[in-house]
């Protein structure tokens, strides 16, 4: 029998830091934080993306509409002068041939030509929104300049409602996308890498409880989740005034459930693959459709009605719906329940299958 060699405290009396679950979770943090790229893609990139989109799609006062006027004739010159007086228009004087080209390349939204007998011809592409709006703006200036009066008096009140801008739409989408990517990349790569390096086999050759190994991924995901959500929400609230109308607690709960669910999906994707190439393929296969279909950058209602049942059943669509309802509409628990149920069902399904087929060696 071997002589006992400085045997240490048993687990019951063991300080919390020396417990395997704590140690495994610490490993997750260490591996993540020591990988600068991962930190960038998880924390910095989504914020940069939100800022970029926020700037590109910021709501600016309507630009003057650029119109081409064919000059060189007396009536043409006078038309140009009359239109130039309107503040809503910027007039480019040009010959007939340059006008045709300018219209084709989109330099001008519309070309106005003064015809004989005081008539005016508008040339524009009515499939383009600028073309249609230019037609009304120019016509308004022409008719008003000629003395038209409105039979009905109207008044205008301009509003820019926070919550209805593009940035308000896209921030919950980015949040959802980040939660999905974090769960899938975070679990998928680390697990397959450990399997490829024979580390998984080495770990299961110790008394390590397998559930703790998997739980360590979920725990670390939750901590990173709080940081990610805090970062994205904080920046977009501060920079763009994106609102959170519903309860913050509910928002966090939605994120939490989504993170669990996508963690399950990540686990399922990583459950058999032996190479990182193999698992990357699977991850893209799972994520790509959701990036496009699930309403991250534009509403999923743009897709045809026949595809809707499928799209609405995707976990990212459900997550985004729940996030938008909570943030933008201030919806309560009852309203997000159906979406949450879809997200949770995915999570449970994935976990059950993943644990069944998981390859430990």
């Amino acid at each position, binding site marked *: *029998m*071997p*002589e*006992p*060699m*400085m*045997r*240490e405290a*048993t*687990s019951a009396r063991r300080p919390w830091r*020396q*417990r*395997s679950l*704590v*140690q*495994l979770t*610490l*490993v997750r943090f*260490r*591996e993540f934080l*020591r*990988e600068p790229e991962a930190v960038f893609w998880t924390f910095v990139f989504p914020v940069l993306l939100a800022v970029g989109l926020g700037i590109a799609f910021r709501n600016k006062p309507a630009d003057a509409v650029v119109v081409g006027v064919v000059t060189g004739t007396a009536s043409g010159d006078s038309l140009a002068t009359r239109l130039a007086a309107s503040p809503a228009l910027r007039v480019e004087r040009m010959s007939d041939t340059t006008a045709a080209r300018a219209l084709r390349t989109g330099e001008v939204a519309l070309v106005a030509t003064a015809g004989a007998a005081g008539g005016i011809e508008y040339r524009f592409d009515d499939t383009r929104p600028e073309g249609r709006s230019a037609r009304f703006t120019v016509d308004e200036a022409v008719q008003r300049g000629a003395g038209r009066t409105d039979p009905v008096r109207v008044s205008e009140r301009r509003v820019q409602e926070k919550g209805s801008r593009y940035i308000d739409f896209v921030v919950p989408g980015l949040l959802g996308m980040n939660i999905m990517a974090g769960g899938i990349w975070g679990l998928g790569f680390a697990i397959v890498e*450990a399997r490829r*390096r*024979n*580390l998984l*086999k*080495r*770990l*299961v*050759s*110790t*008394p*390590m409880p397998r559930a703790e190994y998997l739980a360590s991924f979920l725990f670390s995901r939750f901590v990173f989740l709080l940081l990610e959500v805090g970062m994205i929400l904080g920046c977009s609230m501060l920079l763009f005034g994106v609102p959170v109308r519903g309860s913050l607690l509910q928002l966090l709960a939605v994120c939490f459930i989504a993170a669990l669910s996508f963690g399950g999906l990540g686990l399922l994707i990583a459950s058999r693959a032996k190479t990182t190439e193999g698992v990357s393929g699977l991850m893209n296969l799972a994520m790509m459709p959701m990036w496009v279909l699930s309403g991250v950058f534009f509403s999923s209602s743009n897709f045809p009605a026949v595809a809707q049942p499928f799209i609405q059943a995707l976990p990212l669509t459900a997550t985004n719906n729940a996030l938008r309802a909570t943030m933008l509409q201030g919806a309560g628990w009852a309203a997000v329940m159906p979406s949450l149920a879809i997200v949770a069902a995915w999570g449970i399904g994935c976990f059950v299958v993943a644990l069944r087929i998981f390859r430990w*060696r």
Partner: protein
Amino acid sequence: MTLAPPALRVAGLRKAYDDVVAVDGLDLTVNAGECFGLLGPNGAGKTTTIEICEGLTAPDSGTVEVLGMTWASDERALRERLGIQLQETQLAEKLTVGETVQLFRSFYTTGRDVQEVIDVVQLGEKVHARVGKLSGGQKQRLALACAIVGDPELLFLDEPTTGLDPQSRRQLWDLIVELRASGRSIVLTTHYMDEAERLCDRVAIVDHGRVIALGSPRELIASLGAEHVVEFTTGAGGHALDRDELRALDGVKAAREQDGRWTLEVVELARAMPALLGELGRRGLRLGELATHSATLEDVFVSLTGRQLRDA
């Protein structure tokens, strides 16, 4: 005092993969406190055997009893008492040496002090170094540290010194000798003869998934019946030499030729050498190269299989 059960008892083990039979009816008993070596060429089935014993691979048939227990009924208890070094494990590169050993320590209810184990494998200076930055030898020693931090009764070491320079190998040997001296049972695989001769109380020579010889290194070498090995080449006309005539020479026990190179197993060098030189002279042959060494386990393997261990 009751007699300790054998550290490991394996009977009728078989494991086939799609196209090969990796283990083909293998029996072994490793006594408590013994250092036991599995020696064999590449693909002999050593890793497959050891991983079946470690409860990591399921055999097609056969029984495995470890420390008197079986994997089916006592997995959890067994894992607490075993220390394992796999043939190939790349530990997490981003962790430091200290963090890695600490992690493995946390899996065991009882075990050794982390710092002490790191010192034992002489990585004290590297506690804060990242695993990815260690040399091959340092990684092997770290793997050993992870294997012993749970203070195991039985250690499985799969090629613990492969790829190490001679100095690192010697350091690792010293560690294994110490572990053995402190009463641990050790099963190791290797294809280095000198390693097996130096470390192991008993050795099983494995080929094609079977044990083809078993005993202490000394017994195995003695079983050759020849203490020395003479290797020589001749100038032109070497093919004229005859195996049976060489074997009949005084003091020669066996003779083999491969690619123009002759190998003689020799009982007594002082008698065999004059006889060999006389024979060559009689045939008018000139001696090319000549080398002699004391018989080793390598020669045992060659004598049993007709192949060299290293390139079998």
